């Protein structure tokens, strides 16, 4: 897998009244078939004041629709790229990650570029589904052969159910696990019930306590930096290069920070392929990917 070497920075802004002006050149993206152009246009106009919304096809081939060019076609190579806005509403998380990865790839030669991602409160939770290993860069699941050749280092959010993570662990067969635990948190204040819920997983994979990565949900920049640092430190050389693979967990900012760290570290995702990114009615903030001259 190619590694995203870039000078990109990621910042998070909380709240739904942004403390900066939107450039008249900025454009919104509506990713079909997951988002409908009229709905996206209305939402982008109401929430952020971006009045030009372009239809874009999803970079995932099985979702591509005839006639809709993907984000590739909207990013002029090597020149100044207009600021782009993406609403996570309704987007499967794997598609969100792969579309962002494609934007990063396409803007590598650009002097300046910005992609802003609206972060919403969690929407309706679906019942537990089977997770599969997703290659963000290739916008598809790992083939069985690729999967067998990989030495996965798994970052599962323990806010997920034990049943889901146990099944995902069996499917992935990781060589090591770094569980992600929200701290500070209300649950952490009351005891270690979170660890007990996942006792079987932690014991069966002999996960040492020192492996647990604590992330503050209300400080997404810290969560993002910590996880990115860990994933980037994984050895990539040798006969069994390690592949960081993330199973993000709510709340929304933490979820997005975890997804973005997977994208920016050139890692992968281990989630149900139709799991949708937080898509509630309220916008909680924005993640800004900025490429500077």
């Amino acid at each position, binding site marked *: 897998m190619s590694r995203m070497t870039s000078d990109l*920075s990621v*910042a998070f*802004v909380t709240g739904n009244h*942004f*403390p*900066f*002006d939107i*450039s008249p050149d900025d454009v919104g993206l509506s990713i079909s078939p997951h988002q409908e152009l009229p709905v996206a246009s209305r939402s982008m106009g109401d929430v952020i004041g971006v009045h030009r919304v372009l239809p874009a096809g999803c970079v995932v081939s099985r979702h591509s629709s005839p006639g809709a060019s993907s984000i590739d076609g909207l990013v002029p190579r090597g020149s100044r790229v207009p*600021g782009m806005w993406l609403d996570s509403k309704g987007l499967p998380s794997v598609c969100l990650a792969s579309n962002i990865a494609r934007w990063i790839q396409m803007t590598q030669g650009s002097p*300046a570029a*910005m992609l*802003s991602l609206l972060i919403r409160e969690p929407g309706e939770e679906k019942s537990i589904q089977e997770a599969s290993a997703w290659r963000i860069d290739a916008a598809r699941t790992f083939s069985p052969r690729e999967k067998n050749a990989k030495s996965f280092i798994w970052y599962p959010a323990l806010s997920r159910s034990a049943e889901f993570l146990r099944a995902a662990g069996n499917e992935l067969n990781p060589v090591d696990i770094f569980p992600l635990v929200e*701290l*500070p948190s*209300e649950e*952490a*204040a*009351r*005891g*270690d019930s979170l*660890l*007990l819920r996942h*006792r079987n997983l*932690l*014991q069966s994979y002999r996960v040492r*306590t*020192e492996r*647990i990565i*604590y*992330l*503050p949900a209300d*400080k997404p*920049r*810290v969560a993002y930096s*910590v996880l990115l640092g860990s994933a980037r430190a994984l050895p990539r050389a040798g006969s069994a290069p390690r592949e960081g693979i993330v199973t993000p967990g709510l709340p929304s900012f933490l979820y997005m920070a975890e997804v973005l760290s997977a994208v920016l570290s050139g890692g992968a995702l281990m989630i149900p392929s139709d799991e949708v990114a937080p898509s509630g009615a309220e916008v909680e903030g*924005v993640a*800004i990917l*900025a490429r*500077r001259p």
Partner: protein
Amino acid sequence: MRTGLTPESREIAVFQNDLRDLGVGTTKEAVRNLLFLAERKYNRYDLYAPGETFPQRLVDWLSNFDAVDRNAAMDVVRELRFFNQNEMRALAAATLQNVVTAIQSDGMSLSRASAISYMDTLQSQTEMAVADSLFIAMADDVLFDFFRRNAQRQFPVLRRGNFVEYYKLNPEDVSDLEEYSRVFLLDQISGSSLSFLRREDENWKGKLPTFFEIWGGHVKSNEAKVHYLPFIMSTVAERTLSSNLDPWNASANSGNSITVTPTQMVPVASCLSTDGGSSVDETTRVASLCDKYYHLFKENIHHKVGGGCKYGFGSAGLILVLYTNCPNDSLYLIWHKNNGWRPLFERVEHHRE
């Protein structure tokens, strides 16, 4: 009976038998959970002797109680909250981000022209403000070295002089410090807030008044804002401190308002509370236990300041253990060793009589 068992099953069976011998009935699942947490967390208590483990301590500790009380004592064990080194470091790192948040919410003049220029000005002004800050340890175990290195890695503009390892300095040394516009007082835990600020014999006592005795003139001449940042704070401490700060500000501090930002809040243990962790309910089973055995506890003058330790110092109602020590805001039952009592997590007192 134990032949043919796996090592784990054997360990569970032995421990379950030990508990049963003490009259404590537990399920295999509960024993498995206890052993899991013991191995992952409790056994790493700094003050355990080499080779000493939580299960041994637990059996010994339960023997302190009359047989009829041992199941109630297990309610306490089930609510243990042990913060290990990694968790404390994570809280210290999150506290640094609280510093950033405090600085950024303090009326910066930021560019609105675009998201990127906003982020750029935010970053540069944050760095300048961080460099103009003083970080002062209010306790000797706030992971200060870790905090400093982590802060310097994120903000290379910070120098050694931005960090003061303990607030009790010689006043002459204080006046040697460079100018600053913000002071961040770092504390490990505020379980009752009484060590930080309390009214005693018509006088204000505690770390905060002592800090201002030493630093007051310098803080005022710098017109510095003062922030108190405990890594952990109890709901009882938050309530008590907020009721003490206003009168203290009015009577003693003459104009310097203190902002309090805890990183992790902890409620009163639910086995001691019937109002969702806001306060101790003395009618609960565990509160009765605290009352029954309190005659074995020896209050010293420092404990008396907090009205004793029956439900933890200042009635904080915590069952919380830090890997370095057990705070006295936790129930005395788990940490004291007076009159032959064998503690679960022995405490080393900060103050000697």
